[in-house]
């Protein structure tokens, strides 16, 4: 696999709050992607949490951005439905029709960057419809199932744009510290 065009700045980012059930889809997808795929070092892989307008600095002068996020369902879409939104979908959606759960942060940040002349040339949202975003709940099964498909979709989107992205033979360890039972031990009081 080789890059035909000159290397550009690419960001794969996850949005969402890991403490709020399926709202944590974005960060989960980012950790799975990091674990399963190996990318060109020019690809930044970032769990950005819920930055609101603080998103702008992370997309500043980046060429291609792939955002993994929980999204609002369109029409009859059920929990776990995977959708890929491109620039046109994002631009055409007015204030009433939010694409991701973390608007207005996404739309406003992109609009500011556009006006300042530092916006990404391409933005893609890989979105999953959440089932439940309750406090302290884990990811629901429907969203967990879709997460693997979403991760492969991110890889495909990069490869289609001639960006190096290979599935690892041996996945590296995921750091899913927020899922109960997976956090560290050893404070001297373990039972």
């Amino acid at each position: 696999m080789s890059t035909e065009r000159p290397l550009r700045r690419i960001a794969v980012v996850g949005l969402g709050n890991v403490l709020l059930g399926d709202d944590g889809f974005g960060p989960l997808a980012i950790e799975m992607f990091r674990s399963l795929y190996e990318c060109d070092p020019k690809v930044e892989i970032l769990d950005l949490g819920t930055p609101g307008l603080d998103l702008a600095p992370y997309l500043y002068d980046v060429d291609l951005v792939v955002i993994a996020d929980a999204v609002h369902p369109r029409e009859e879409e059920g929990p776990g439905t995977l959708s890929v939104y491109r620039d046109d979908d994002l631009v055409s959606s007015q204030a009433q029709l939010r694409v991701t759960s973390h608007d207005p942060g996404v739309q406003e940040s992109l609009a500011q960057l556009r006006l300042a002349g530092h916006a990404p040339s391409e933005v893609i949202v890989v979105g999953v419809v959440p089932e439940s975003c309750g406090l302290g709940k884990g990811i629901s099964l429907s969203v967990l199932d879709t997460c693997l498909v979403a991760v492969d979709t991110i890889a495909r989107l990069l490869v289609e744009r001639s960006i190096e992205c290979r599935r690892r033979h041996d996945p590296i360890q995921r750091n899913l510290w927020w899922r109960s039972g997976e956090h560290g031990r050893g404070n001297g009081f373990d039972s």
Partner: protein
Amino acid sequence: MARISIDPVTRIEGHLRIDVEVDGGKVQKAWASCTMWRGLETILRGRDAREGWVFAQRFCGVCTTVHAIASVRAVEDALQLEIPANAQYIRNLILIAHALHDHIIHFYQLSSLDWVDIATIPKADPARAASIAEGYSNWPGNSRRELEAVQSKVKGMVDSGQLGIFSHGYWGHPAMRLSPELNLILFAHYLQALEFQRKACQIVGVLGGKTPHIQNLAVGGVMNAINLNSLATFNMDRLGMLQSLLQDLIPFVQQAYFVDACLLSASYPEWFRYGRGVANYFAVPDLPTDANATRFDLPGGLIMKGELTSVQPIQNWRDQSFRSSVAEDVTHAWYKGEGAQTPWKGETDPDYTDFQADKKYTWVKAPRYNGQPIQVGPLANVLVGYASGHPLTRKWTDTAFKTISSVHEAGTAAFHLTPEALQSTMGRYLARAIRSAMLSDLALQHWQLLTDNILKGDDTTFNPPQFPSHECEGVGMHEAPRGALSHWVIVDKGAFTNYQAVVPTTWNASPRDEKGVPGPYETSLIANPVVDPIKPLEVLRTVHSFDPCMACACHTFDSSGRAIARVKVL
């Protein structure tokens, strides 16, 4: 009498609803309501006390770092654990960079368009705008060419009728009073601000290993390995990189942002008469300059009833009167029970009743200090510093006053400010800019402290914590961008048995207490003018002056993706 309900008010995290009763063009009564449930702390109960900060920094997507810091400081306080000087300096530099980022974004992206009417920018004369701007500052981004480029972008946007994200603004509102030239200058800096937010994030990233969620903290210090002879660790290259990022960032803060806040102050002098609100203030000491945190570069203190001469210092984080004076009242909040309790015993047991103005109407508890409501934030920080004779606070406050009195663009007489007059809506904006200018100076000082200490041969960054087998309690304080933050923890055998975060927005967005005394947002809105109840721009100016961020004051998830603001005139 018109009753106006604005929901939501914030453009970032969480939900804030403001209800006001307007009569004779003025607000008579106000209620601040947070419309989402709080309860993030329950997640921390039972967790390993060394890991609390990792969870706490997910309370809010915007104030990540501040909760991480308050959490490790709370556990260190419970253990009475001293941390190495290097760890203090590295943490301080992270906190300063985060605060500068936060203050810049508040001024430009979150609130400047309450004062700046972009629809007039096509009418501006860029040459005149450049000469005005250059008269107050030597910021390179004020050139005529730069301002012409910004004007043509705005023209394109206005001509196409596609205002996009700006379509919600109150353009042409009678309360908008800047000249087209000043509007152009401020909006040019609005766009330039994005680059400097990026620089601030890079500083946090270099020190914290990752941003927005830093990775380098530990109860007991920081995990940055310092070795001047190794390429892989914190070394002179990193220090050099930090210094150069700071040298890029600071001129924007001191020559663009600070000056813009002065220009805005001089152009809207009447806004120093509105929005005073609760005139009790406190700031907690921060930016320690020694390992065991006995000396601080930002002083802490308490001011009651707006009397600066009455300032009482809060000397350090172990201040006993602070610990015994803070209580949270749930009389008007959607929790079971009534009255007030120390955060160490705080419960978070929901009891939702719908919005009932005379009973329970918000998810925010009412924190009180010796029974009194308190206003926190950069204004408290600056007033406490000024009143205690802190040289750096005096230097930048006096510089601001001098700059403001030299402004004559508004066509009004020279405007002379006093520290007492800062207690107002515009005072909160100006104080935030004064604080940012101070923090910029302090960033270089703490970079120097760190560098000197490392060159002296000290490479320690971590003292391992020892957890006793009995229960212990601690408070972690931080003077965060929105004001005094405290995390209150009880640790037993290395795990949390209780965790309460008393956050700045809880102090400021506080509802009425059991005596019916309203909180700072509510009080500050009284007598605020409202020219047009359909477009209550003036209410937003006062509320935005506090930099409201409800995510950590309450629960955060916005599942409905509502429009930016819905104004209902009842």
